[in-house]
């Protein structure tokens, strides 16, 4: 029983961090109908930036702050430099998809260069900032609590931005109908940039939290986790913020339980098993709105 509860707690903490990555996919998919394959590499980039600034003696807090902003800017640049020109040319959708794949190659392998961080794994400072909590035989690590709490607060902030602010309104308008929104005076290019910025920031935070939990980073760390988080976003219903949270938690908990009882081989693919089951039952995800097809 304790191992089961332990797996659930572990899953909830991880799942919350997945949700933080998932919203980045979800927001970008919402406005552009694009799977942003560069997102996982930005998650890795964020973690590496924290590592770098700590290594040059910037304090933990400021290192994280700088990393968040840099990751947001990087995500925005990806859009400005590589994706916006494609939109202007009205390229086929697959061109954007391949572009994000190319960008993820650049970032991921850029981090792994000998002159940069090398491809070797690096230690990452632990985020066990206060003593672990013991309940009977059950240990809850402080990094798990921090991961859960920080992600929860940030998702609330994101939710506030999307639902209550002017820029959030523009984002939702663009998501509904980019052309109409732009005719109504919404600067869609700015909205899209901002969406990428927010996505990049949350990916960096998730990168920090998860790296602080595992205490290890590598340039390819974003590849699998990115795909999983994307699956989580789709499970919850793309374009719906709380959907990403539920999707992230479901994926996190299920994979931890599966890993506990079926072995570590099934940990990563669990996200996709859930994904396919959900899509077959509910084609728009758990909370997704039904898309209206036009003739």
């Amino acid at each position: 029983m304790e191992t089961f509860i332990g797996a659930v707690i572990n899953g909830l903490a991880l799942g919350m961090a997945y949700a933080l990555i998932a919203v980045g996919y979800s927001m970008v998919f919402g406005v552009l109908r694009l799977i942003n394959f560069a997102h996982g590499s930005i998650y890795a980039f964020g973690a590496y930036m924290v590592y770098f600034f700590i290594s040059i003696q910037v304090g933990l807090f400021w290192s994280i702050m700088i990393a968040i902003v840099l990751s947001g800017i990087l995500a925005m640049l990806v859009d400005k430099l590589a994706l916006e020109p494609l939109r202007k040319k009205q390229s086929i959708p697959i061109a954007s998809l391949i572009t994000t794949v190319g960008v993820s190659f650049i970032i991921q392998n850029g981090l792994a260069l000998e002159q940069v961080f090398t491809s070797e794994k690096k230690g990452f400072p632990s985020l066990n900032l206060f003593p672990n909590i013991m309940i009977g035989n059950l240990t809850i690590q402080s990094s798990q609590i921090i991961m859960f709490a920080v992600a929860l607060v940030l998702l609330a902030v994101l939710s506030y931005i999307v639902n209550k602010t002017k820029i959030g309104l523009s984002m939702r308008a663009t998501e509904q109908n980019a052309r109409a929104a732009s005719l109504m005076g919404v600067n869609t290019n700015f909205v899209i940039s901002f969406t990428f910025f927010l996505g990049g920031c949350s990916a960096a935070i998730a990168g920090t939290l998860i790296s602080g939990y595992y205490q290890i980073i590598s340039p390819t760390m974003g590849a699998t986790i990115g795909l999983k988080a994307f699956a989580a976003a789709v499970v919850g219903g793309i374009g719906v913020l709380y959907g990403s949270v539920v999707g992230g938690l479901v994926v996190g908990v299920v994979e931890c339980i599966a890993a506990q009882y079926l072995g570590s081989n099934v940990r990563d693919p669990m996200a996709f098993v859930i994904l396919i089951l959900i899509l077959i039952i509910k084609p728009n995800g758990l909370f997704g709105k039904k898309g209206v097809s036009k003739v």
Partner: protein
Amino acid sequence: MKEKKSLNLLAPFESFVDKFKVPLSILVGAFLIAVPFLGASRVAMRNLVMIFLYAMLGMGLNVLLGYVGQVSLGHAGFYAIGAYTSAILTTTYGWSFWTGAIAGACVAALIGFLLGLPTLRLSGTYLTIVTLGFGEIVLMVLRQWESVTNGNYGIRSIPVPELFGWELTLSNGGFYWLILFLSTVTAIACYTIKNSNAGRTLIAIKEDELAATMMGIKTTRYKILAFVVSAFITGLAGAYYSVINNGYIEPNNFVFNYSIQILSVVIVGGMGTIRGMYFGSALLMMFPQVFRFLNQWRFVIYGLLLVLMMQFRPQGALGWQSTLPYKLPRRAKKALAEREKAKTVQ
């Protein structure tokens, strides 16, 4: 709605290839068959084998992506199914490579059919996501189903193919001729499919699904057909791979990156074309070899090339639209000629 005319430096080359298709093919064909006698090194032969293998994989995905317009991010899954089915049948059950390979392709096609079924409910991007999940789940099954797949250890001592007692290997040119044969047959099949009712139908669905529906096309049925054909070709390629990889396959040979690599072949070469698959494959297979001196930089540059390609030539290197007249069926041509004659007699 005319597209903006941009300067196309490849135009003379494009029309040259279009015009001299037949003599060019014969010339290139003769040369390709003779390659193993030209004293190429083992490494060169291995590279050639990989180029033709990936051209074949590209053609498989092309049926789905280039014809009907469905992006798949899980083709490594079909590749794996073909490879494992064939490998298990030849090692555990003593089947010959030939029957094993056909069985591998058929099992992949069957799974392709199942994967195509969600097209009834899902469209476009969502289906792409399902293919991505499919690839990961295949990997999980390979790792987990140890009694059959031997889990993470993979399958060893896969026998090489035999043809009338002659063992095909890399050094005697057998591997090379085999893939040359397989990829040529695939190319011919893709060509005849493309120039038949089924091929036209698939392309019509890509161009405008609603208009296709209003022409009476059962779009779901044809999309599933594309999945099946695509999976069959990819599975066959997988079976081939299982024998050339030093008799050894493991789940890591079929991870997500390989799906991306197959996709890149199609995109870089030119979606919807057959020539593009050979070219895209040659480019992508040779790139890491030629730029070995760049060490890790080459992967960064590889990414950069993909990005630039999408900016400046999204149709792919050889992805032009043929400027030749429509190739009339032989009998139609004859009938038209007779009509002409009747007219002039009058």
